[in-house]
């Protein structure tokens, strides 16, 4: 029964649900007077329920109050339950006016049916039925076949050079990872941390760490802006979050049964806040999370220990932090841990494996050109990290580095392909991660002057033309197109993700609307802004595609030919490390410089 001049859609939907369930219903037209409505009700011999809807907010309280007074006066209240709902309804007011039930505007026809069939009982805190997606292997079904023999051969030769050069080399990072693995194994077997074996292993580990890291193990000061999380706070937090999670209302994954899988990046500095963000993002439809660690921690030899907070651009990679995050992670959530730069790459992958993460991130081009790590050191460490990822069965994504400096996309992609080939040779499973990014090189060459569609599509087309491999768009999608304007940021994210979906990639990483805000941590609500925008945009497009113009194919061809030239130059150089120093994959001309952290630390194996 609509108490509106025209609106009755909600009631029509509810009537449909009730009719299909076998109930007898009468839908009165809108714009009847209260007397007419009550007259029609009185004509029914048997009337169990009257469902009233009101869309217009103005005057709703008065008209509803009058209706209930008349219903009382005519005796209707004695034989019939009366419920009210709609956009104009304040549920609290409905109770005050004496309605048997009040339904908010978000009520579904199923909920109304449930009310009728349960004899007027309302289900408080009803949980939506969520379609749970099982974890997926993003690499499944890909052959990793290179479509051109020439490219395949170039990459094989370069991979040979790399593996041959690195064959007998080791580093403090590699040795620390091996020692740490032994320590963790001993602890898992129940050995006390005071046992002589563990003490000995720890001494060897600390000998390979920077003093700042070693001192923290010995009970001395933690590095600046780093604090131990008080044990009582952790206890309280766990209890509190468990209670909140038991009431969590879950939404469906945004893309339901199709790709891409949606990832969020989380690294507030505290594993506790990370858990809160993670749970809410899971509830709002995220498929996976990527744990971000601070860039500064990558420059120290050694990883800290314990449940630690850190004020900076990420959450510290300690085994205890990771285990706590994992403890609260939903079963179906995919989890990635970064290991692509710095001096602790093998240990980071070790942690990822032992903490049962699903993914990691590796790319010696990224970490050594523009992100501070010595190329030789990072190559050696990354090869060990790749072996570890294969050992643990964890695929890793290879992020392209064209966001850094002015590295041209072809150079960045040549690097992606080298990493892919090396990974395959070592038995690992790489996922290529081209950035949907308004990068410096693209800005300078005006490739995205008109739109963000064509060149990003060209990237995907080029990679697909070269190799049959999984693709994951990051990081996040639309990087450098965001501003601090929340609406603009949400829209650009949503459209980039729909483009990625149209191009049938396997996964995407989503920004928050705080992406362009650099003076503080990412807040929770801005994450949900973006997810809501993605959801709404997907609702708009459904199965339709964003289609690039023919320019995308022209640019894809250009990228492919340039990639080939770069790989040829690299092979001809016959010294891969020199290639990195000499700028074949990006150098001073492109605004990036080989890193220095860890220089001269690799040595020949004993």
């Amino acid at each position, binding site marked *: 029964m609509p108490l509106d001049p025209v609106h009755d859609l909600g009631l029509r939907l509810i009537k449909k649900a009730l009719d299909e369930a076998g109930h007898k219903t009468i839908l009165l037209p809108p714009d009847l007077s209260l007397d007419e409505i009550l007259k029609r009700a009185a004509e029914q011999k048997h009337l169990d329920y009257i469902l009233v809807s009101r869309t217009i907010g103005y005057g709703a309280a008065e008209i509803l109050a009058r209706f209930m007074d008349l219903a009382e006066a005519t005796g209707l209240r004695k034989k019939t339950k009366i419920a009210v709902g709609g956009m104009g309804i304040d549920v609290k007011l409905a109770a005050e006016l004496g309605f048997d039930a009040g339904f908010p505007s978000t009520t579904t026809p199923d909920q109304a049916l449930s009310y009728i069939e349960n004899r007027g009982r309302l289900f408080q805190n009803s949980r939506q039925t969520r379609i749970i997606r099982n974890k997926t292997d993003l690499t499944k079904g890909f052959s990793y076949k290179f479509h051109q023999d020439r490219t395949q051969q170039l990459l094989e030769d370069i991979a040979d050079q790399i593996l041959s050069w690195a064959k007998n080399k080791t580093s403090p990072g590699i040795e620390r990872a091996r020692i740490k693995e032994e320590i963790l194994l001993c602890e898992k077997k129940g050995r006390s941390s005071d046992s002589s074996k563990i003490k000995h292993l720890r001494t060897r580990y600390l000998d390979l760490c920077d003093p700042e890291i070693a001192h923290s193990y010995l009970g001395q000061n933690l590095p600046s802006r780093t*604090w131990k999380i008080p044990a*009582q*706070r952790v206890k*309280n*937090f766990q209890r*509190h979050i468990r209670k909140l999670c038991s009431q969590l209302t879950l939404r469906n994954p945004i893309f339901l049964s199709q790709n891409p899988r949606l990832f969020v990046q989380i690294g*507030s*500095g*505290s594993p*506790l*806040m*990370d858990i*809160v963000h993670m749970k809410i993002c899971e509830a709002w439809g995220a498929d996976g999370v990527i744990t971000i660690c601070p860039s500064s921690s990558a420059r120290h030899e050694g990883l800290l220990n314990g449940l630690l*907070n*850190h*004020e900076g651009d990420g959450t510290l990679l300690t085994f205890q932090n990771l285990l706590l995050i994992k403890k609260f992670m939903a079963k179906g959530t995919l989890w990635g841990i970064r290991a692509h730069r710095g001096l602790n790459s093998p240990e980071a992958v070790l942690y990822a494996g032992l903490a049962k993460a699903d993914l990691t991130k590796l790319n010696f081009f990224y970490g050594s050109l523009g992100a501070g790590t010595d190329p030789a050191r990072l190559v050696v460490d990354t090869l060990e990290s790749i072996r570890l990822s294969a050992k643990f069965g964890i695929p890793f994504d290879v992020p392209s580095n064209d966001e850094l400096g002015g590295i041209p996309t072809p150079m960045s992609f040549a690097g992606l392909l080298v990493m892919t080939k090396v990974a395959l040779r070592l038995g690992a499973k790489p996922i290529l991660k081209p950035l949907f990014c308004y990068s410096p090189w693209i800005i300078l060459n005006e490739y995205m002057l008109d739109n963000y569609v064509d060149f990003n599509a060209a990237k995907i087309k080029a990679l697909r033309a070269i190799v049959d491999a999984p693709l994951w768009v990051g990081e996040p999608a639309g990087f450098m197109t965001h*501003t*601090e*304007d*929340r609406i603009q940021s949400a829209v650009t994210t949503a459209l980039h993700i729909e483009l990625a979906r149209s191009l049938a990639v396997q996964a995407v990483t989503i920004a928050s609307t*705080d992406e362009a*805000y650099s*003076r*503080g*941590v990412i*807040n*929770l*609500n801005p994450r949900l802004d973006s997810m809501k925008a993605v959801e709404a945009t997907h609702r708009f497009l459904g199965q339709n595609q964003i289609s690039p113009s023919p320019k995308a194919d022209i640019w894809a061809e250009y990228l492919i030919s340039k990639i080939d030239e770069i790989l040829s130059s690299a092979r001809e150089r016959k010294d891969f490390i020199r290639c990195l120093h000499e700028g074949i994959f990006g150098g001073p001309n492109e605004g990036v410089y080989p890193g220095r952290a860890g220089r001269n630390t690799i040595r020949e194996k004993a």
Partner: protein
Amino acid sequence: MADSALGRVVDGLDIETFLLCENEEEGRNQAFLLMKELGFLQADVIFCEYIGMGVRVRMRAVMNKPCHHYSWLPE
């Protein structure tokens, strides 16, 4: 759970509005003043754009920093 509604804010409180002013600088100043008037002595401007006769602005008051005690977490 926290006794006050403000105490239940997970991390930040954003206030978004349109303030009448003559230029962006005045708009920013007024936005900070607005937050002070609302009782938030420490706030940051996330976004501010001057259009026509005023600024579209978003301000943030940090209620809970990740590494500190959380007001919504019982002691």
